[in-house]
Structures are given as C-alpha cells and as structure tokens.
C-alpha cells in the first residue's frame, strides 16, 4: 500500500521538498500532497528591490502549482488545524487528510497588530513594511516622492525572515536617495533590538562599519513598544523615542496561525520545535518542519531552507523505510548582502561557525565579508537559479548542504 506524505505550504521549503521527494520515491510507493491557501509563490528576496524600483511586484510572483513536478497533488485550501494524535490534517471546509508523514513548511507570517499603533493612523502613509508585496509597492510610491526628512528602518523584534534584509534596505536607501539627488536632505537611522548591527560579532562589526561609512546612524537595544504613525515617532518600552517622517518597519513574525490551533505542534510563537539536525518534531516522530516554520537556532532564510531540504527528504525516505535518520543538517546559511552601487557582500556560516572573511565555496570563489561587484552579480543570478534549479530540487554546482571551510580565514573562527 502506498504511503502518503502531506506537505503544508507550497513556498520554498514545501516545493523543493516535494520535488526532491518525488524524484527519490516511486509514484506507486509514495503519494505526495502539497496544501496551500493560495496559488501565489513569491520570490521573497525580490521584495527588497521593489521599493527602489529595481523590481516589479508582478515579476517576482508565479503559480505555486506550476513549480511542482508531475505526480504531486496540489490542493488550494486553508488549513484549520493538525491533529498529530490521529495523523490528520483538518482543512477549512471539513476535508480531512490523513498522512503517514507530515511536513510543516508554512513559513512565518507578519503580525503587525501585535505592535501598538503600527496598523493605526499613518500605516501605509508614513509607516510601511517591505516584507509583503502590498507594502513594498506602497513604499516604492512613497520613496519616489520623498524630498527629505528623517527615515528610520526599524526591526521590532527577532526572529525575522532574512535578518540582513533591513540592513540591505539601509544601504540601498543611501544609494537611492543619492540617485534622487536628495541624500543631503535625508537623515537615515537603523533602529534595532539587538546590541549591534547584526547577531554574529565579526559580521556585526563589518556591517556597523558599512552603516557608518554610508552615513546611517545606528540605535541599538531599542525594543519598540509603539509606532506612532501620526505623531511620527517610535517609542521603546523603556521610554526612548526616535522621530521619523517615514518609517520602514519589519513587523513581528509568528508561525502560520493554524499551528497555534494544533495541540502540541508549535511553540509560543507558532514555530514548530524540531531537532536542529534531523528536523524531526519533538511532538511526534512522523512530523517534520522545514524553513521559516521550523524552530531551529539559525536564520530564517531561503538558503537555510534550501540546505535543510536535502537532509529533510533523505530523512523522510529513511523514516518511511524504517531506517534510522541520518540527521546531518549543520545550520548552514549563505546570504548575499546588497550594499548599493552594484556591490554586495557574501556571508556563510552555520550553527557553530560564525561568518568570517575568505572565499566561497573554496579558495577560488566569491569573496566573503567583503564588498564586491561579483557578489552583486551572484545575487542577481540567483533569481533564475531559484525558479529553475533550487525549486525543482537540483543541486547547485559547488553549493552543498554542509558548510564549506576551505577558502575561509579560519583563524577568525573561535
């Protein structure tokens, strides 16, 4: 009898896992069902470019169903909840899907309403986010007509998707306002809850240096309690204020809402706690999670999801065959950081090793932790690779799941 694998979410993790699994397991042995509430697959790294007119929102969205290989069933339906006791997914509308293996790949959602005032007066007029297409487009219009004043880029609290994106936004804003000829009339400030520009010390120092070089002020340990859109100020819980004429806010993130309605599945924020190496749920051995939905101690980023995919699919195959899981995900993440003027940095790290300088993936390769035009081209080249190699589940040449150490200046590694 064939087994059924139900994958909740048709984004990066759900799609590449389904496609890899389809190639690995014969159709007669394993039935694969992907469930998503809509059919819009967004290339999320593209959202960063929309506010600056460097990408259009409709260019970065494709059909979810079209990215899935033949032999994978796609169901467009919201999920009501999961019952891990009976191995069943309850869809809205009453359909029940039983599974042998469940993969939670529904990413994270923005919870703007958790921050006082954020969606109140001034939202989408003076306070924006570029973390969804509607916000990114609205922000593009606001930036085009911005003639000067105080611009703040604010991360409310971690975790967020792509923790480097708000920094990239600052760098690109510096470039954009120079192009517009108004940079001397714009005061740029980056306001973060962290105690530095970034979480990892070596990269944080490098990125703080870049902010300074580009004239972006840095406010740290700012826990945003309120965004007062009409008054134009961010207010922290400890009573500090940062004034703005235009605010770019990265809202709080949580897991998909059905996770909280599913007994035992998620944590306080709706993310699914899994073993950091095998990606198997603590709640039930036939439940796995991948990507932003998974509660593992690394960045919520597409590269993480990509590297997790290889391990996840092999572990599902092993689980279905009754073999022990090999559990080899090392926390590998790899991020291009756009720094403006056609340049970018590249960082590469895992659970144990922080980003350092050197070259990726070996001594001859892209420069790490250093601005270069090559990295910018790498970032641009990644979009077609995403649709045509990564989602279909092909290995990218020279880029494997495990973090490479060749080519790195390892004396910086503590």
């Amino acid at each position, binding site marked *: 009898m064939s087994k059924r694998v139900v994958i909740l979410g048709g984004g990066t993790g759900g799609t590449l896992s389904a496609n890899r699994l389809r190639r690995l397991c014969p159709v007669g042995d394993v039935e694969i069902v992907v469930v998503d509430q809509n059919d819009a697959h967004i290339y999320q790294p593209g959202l960063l470019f929309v506010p600056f007119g460097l990408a259009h929102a409709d260019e970065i969205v494709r059909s979810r169903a079209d990215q899935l290989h033949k032999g994978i069933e796609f169901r467009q339906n919201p999920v009501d909840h999961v019952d891990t006791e009976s191995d069943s997914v309850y869809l809205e509308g009453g359909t029940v899907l039983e599974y042998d293996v469940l993969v939670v790949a529904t990413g994270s959602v923005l919870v703007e309403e958790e921050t006082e005032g954020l969606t109140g007066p001034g939202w989408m007029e003076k306070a924006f986010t570029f973390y969804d297409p509607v916000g990114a487009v609205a922000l593009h219009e606001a930036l085009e007509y911005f003639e000067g004043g105080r611009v703040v880029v604010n991360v409310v*609290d*971690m*975790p967020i998707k792509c*923790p480097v994106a708000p920094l990239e936004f600052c760098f690109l804003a510096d470039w954009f306002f120079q192009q517009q000829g108004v940079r001397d009339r714009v005061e740029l400030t980056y306001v973060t809850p*962290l105690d530095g520009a970034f*979480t*990892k010390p070596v990269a944080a120092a490098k990125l703080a240096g870049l902010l300074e070089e580009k004239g972006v002020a840095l406010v740290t*340990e700012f*826990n945003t*309690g309120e965004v007062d859109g009409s008054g134009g100020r961010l207010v922290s*819980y*400890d009573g500090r204020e940062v004034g703005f004429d235009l605010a770019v806010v990265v809202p*709080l993130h949580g897991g998909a809402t059905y996770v909280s309605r599913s007994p035992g599945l998620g944590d*306080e*924020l709706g993310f699914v706690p899994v073993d950091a190496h095998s990606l198997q749920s603590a709640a039930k051995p036939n439940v796995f999670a991948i990507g932003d939905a998974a509660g593992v*101690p*690394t*960045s919520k980023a597409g590269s993480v999801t990509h590297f997790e995919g290889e391990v996840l699919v092999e572990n599902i195959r092993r689980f279905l065959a009754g073999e022990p899981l090999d559990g080899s995900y090392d926390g590998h993440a790899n991020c291009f950081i756009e720094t403006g003027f056609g340049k970018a940095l590249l960082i590469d790290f895992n659970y144990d090793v922080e980003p350092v300088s050197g070259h990726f993936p070996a001594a001859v390769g892209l420069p790490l932790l250093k601005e270069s035009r090559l990295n910018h081209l790498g970032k641009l080249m990644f979009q077609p690779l995403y649709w045509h190699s990564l989602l279909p589940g092909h290995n990218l040449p020279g880029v494997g799941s495990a973090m490479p150490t060749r080519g790195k200046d390892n004396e910086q590694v503590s």
Partner: protein
Amino acid sequence: MTVVTYAGTAVTVNDEGFFEDPTQWTEAMAPEIARTEDIGELTEPHWQVIKFMRAEYAAKGTGPTVRILGKTSGVSVKELYQLFPKGPAKVAAKIAGIPKPRGCI
C-alpha cells in the same frame, strides 16, 4: 570570568555579570544582584518573573526573550519594563542566576 560574593557565598560570573553556573544561585542572592541593577526592592511580581525565568531555563536550556515572557509569564511586556526598566529578559535572567538569554538569530 570574575568571582563575586552574593549573600556571603562566592560565585563565578562572566564579563557581563551573568552566572556561569546557575546551580550556584540561591534565592537569598537575588535582592543583592537586583541592587547592582538599580532595583531597590524585589516585589511579588518581580519574584513571579524570576521564578518563571528559572523554570524556563531548567526546561529549555535558555531563558525566554521579552516577547515570549510577555506571552507566557502572565506579566505583560509593559509591566515587565516597569519591573525591570533596563530590559526584562536580560536583567531578570541576571537576577535569576541564569545565562543571558540567547534570543533569536
């Protein structure tokens, strides 16, 4: 690493003053640590948070972040800042004798 004395007992703390070994902590030390953080008197709500931090650390191996504290401790984030004005997660962790919360990456 530094050795400091709280409630008459020597304990090891790191450069930022967080306990290296949470088992060295006793309730009697909490008021003294609190004074180093400019908190005059530990009230009942302070203790509620401190005990919650200890329990979370015992269960999960790390203290909760402010946002998770606000969702799960029974004390709202606003009240948490009134109790621990310099930052609830960090200061309460220090007073509770557990390492600095790792937070999220």
